[in-house]
């Protein structure tokens, strides 16, 4: 079991075949998550059971997010005994012509491989700002990443199996374990409408940034649906069900990854039937350089840069303000390397005099929607906070 993990761990366990089948080597028992998952020490642990960890804005400065700065969001317990030679993906459900099973090798050989940079943001990124507070991990701004994912198109796999005309949704099932230890419960089993499942960029990925996907991010197989709440991108996927109705797996109903269909006043109790599933994530941006708290000398110009993304849409403009949103200046904005990848912006700022400033960034999507400067519509679980990012600067 662990021998096959060597690739993901980045080193080999000598005599791995001699390990008792349920013995975890000391380094895996080690509860230091930074070593365990190869994360930078500046990453912030929100929860250690299940593991949840986020980045800080300045850690996300890379154009392509490396593993060490990628947030971890888990609903259950990460699987450990993964044998890639035995791993299978089953395609089943009411709306497939016939149930079919693929080994990892089948997937790699039978279908064309594609690489896309895909932005994945946790639906609850920014939850910590909600008032009244919303239940769950209190993400600030760091539950977003944009890595390169390599795999086969879900569409190609589904087409080889054959879909019935009544297919409306796909739902994933995976190898992670429920927190309660109940083997009959799935920690999370979400999905996307068939139209999203059939997009070019929707992948069954086996590589991230050119290497095997790290264990915490879904090794050996992850469904990647860029631009949607990252929970739609199931990790450790071993089954995909093609449904003739909206998938009804764990965390598809109630207040999970759903928001009131119509805006409500903060703190309102909303009935289940008035909640709608989150699809594309809203327009958002992050200033990733400089780190907030910079002291700069008077008459020095400040270069800023960062990323902007808008779910399914493209970002058409990013602006900055140094006067609390009274006036805005347009930033230089790059095109995305592919659809659903974040875009990079930069600007050079001159400050009129000494004092305290906040640099605010505001992105606008192709439909003309911009980021709000305050918290957007309140919802019970604190999703979709795309309020503009701010950093503090003092000119001295």
């Amino acid at each position: 079991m662990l021998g096959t993990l060597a690739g993901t761990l980045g080193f080999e366990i000598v005599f791995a075949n001699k390990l008792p089948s349920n013995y975890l080597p000391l380094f895996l028992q080690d509860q230091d998550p930074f070593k365990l998952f190869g994360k930078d020490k500046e990453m912030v642990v929100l929860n250690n059971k299940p593991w949840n960890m986020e980045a800080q804005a300045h850690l996300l400065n890379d154009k392509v997010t490396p593993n060490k700065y990628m947030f971890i969001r888990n609903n259950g317990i990460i699987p450990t005994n993964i044998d890639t030679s035995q791993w299978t993906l089953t395609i089943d459900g009411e709306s497939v012509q016939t149930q079919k099973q693929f080994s990892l090798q089948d997937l790699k050989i039978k279908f064309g491989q594609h690489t896309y940079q895909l932005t994945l943001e946790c639906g609850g990124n920014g939850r910590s700002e909600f008032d009244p507070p919303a239940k769950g991990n209190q993400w600030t701004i760091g539950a977003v990443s944009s890595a390169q994912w390599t795999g086969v198109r879900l569409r190609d796999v589904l087409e080889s199996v054959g879909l019935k005309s009544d297919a409306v949704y796909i739902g994933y099932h995976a190898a992670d374990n429920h927190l309660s230890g109940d083997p009959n419960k799935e920690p999370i089993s979400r999905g996307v409408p068939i139209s999203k499942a059939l997009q070019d960029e929707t992948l069954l990925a086996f590589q991230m940034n050119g290497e095997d996907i790290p264990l915490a991010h879904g090794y050996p197989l992850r469904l990647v649906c860029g631009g949607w709440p990252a929970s739609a991108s199931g990790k450790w996927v071993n089954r995909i069900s093609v449904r003739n109705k909206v998938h009804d797996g764990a965390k598809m109903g109630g207040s999970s990854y759903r928001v009131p269909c119509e805006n409500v006043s903060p703190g309102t109790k909303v009935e289940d039937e008035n909640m709608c599933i989150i699809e594309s994530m809203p327009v958002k941006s992050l200033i990733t350089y400089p780190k907030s708290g910079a002291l700069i000398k008077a008459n020095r110009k400040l270069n800023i840069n960062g990323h902007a993304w808008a779910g399914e849409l493209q970002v058409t403009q990013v602006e900055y303000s140094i006067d609390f949103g009274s006036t805005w200046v347009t930033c230089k904005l790059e095109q995305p390397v592919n659809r659903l990848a974040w875009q990079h912006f930069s600007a050079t700022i001159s400050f009129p005099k000494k004092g305290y400033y906040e640099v605010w960034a505001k992105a606008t999507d192709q439909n003309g929607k911009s980021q709000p400067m305050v918290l957007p519509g309140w919802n019970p679980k604190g999703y979709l906070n795309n309020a503009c990012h701010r950093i503090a600067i003092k000119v001295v």
Partner: protein
Amino acid sequence: MKRDFNHQVKQLSRILFSFLLLFIVLFAGLFYWVNRSPDTIQETEEVIPLVAVDDSIENGIHLATGFVDDDGMQATIQNCTNCHSAKLVTQNRMSREGWEATIRWMQETQNLWDLGDNEDLILTYLAKNYAPDSKGRRQNINQTEWYELE
């Protein structure tokens, strides 16, 4: 006669030897059965490292869990940190009704047990020590560390 007798002795010793072998195998089997490692019984059970529980309190905080030291803390630790970490509790802020609704949700969907007499104790503890504070529509940037940017 003598040859017959020899033959019978040989046959008897063969039978006895067979029985001996059978017993050895049986005992070896029993020995293995009794002493076999538990992981062959439950293949899926994970090895959980034993960690000594440190119950010390510093500045009113239970160091091992991060919980505020107050009436009901032990009941909260015992009932609320089996499945998830204490951090999932301590990073949240809710009214008593909110905490109660969370407990009901866990009982209905996440296999949380009936808390019995402890429920009132736990709810009182959580509502007092982890109550919501008003944040408004946008908080200040809480910049505490400054650095010189060249």
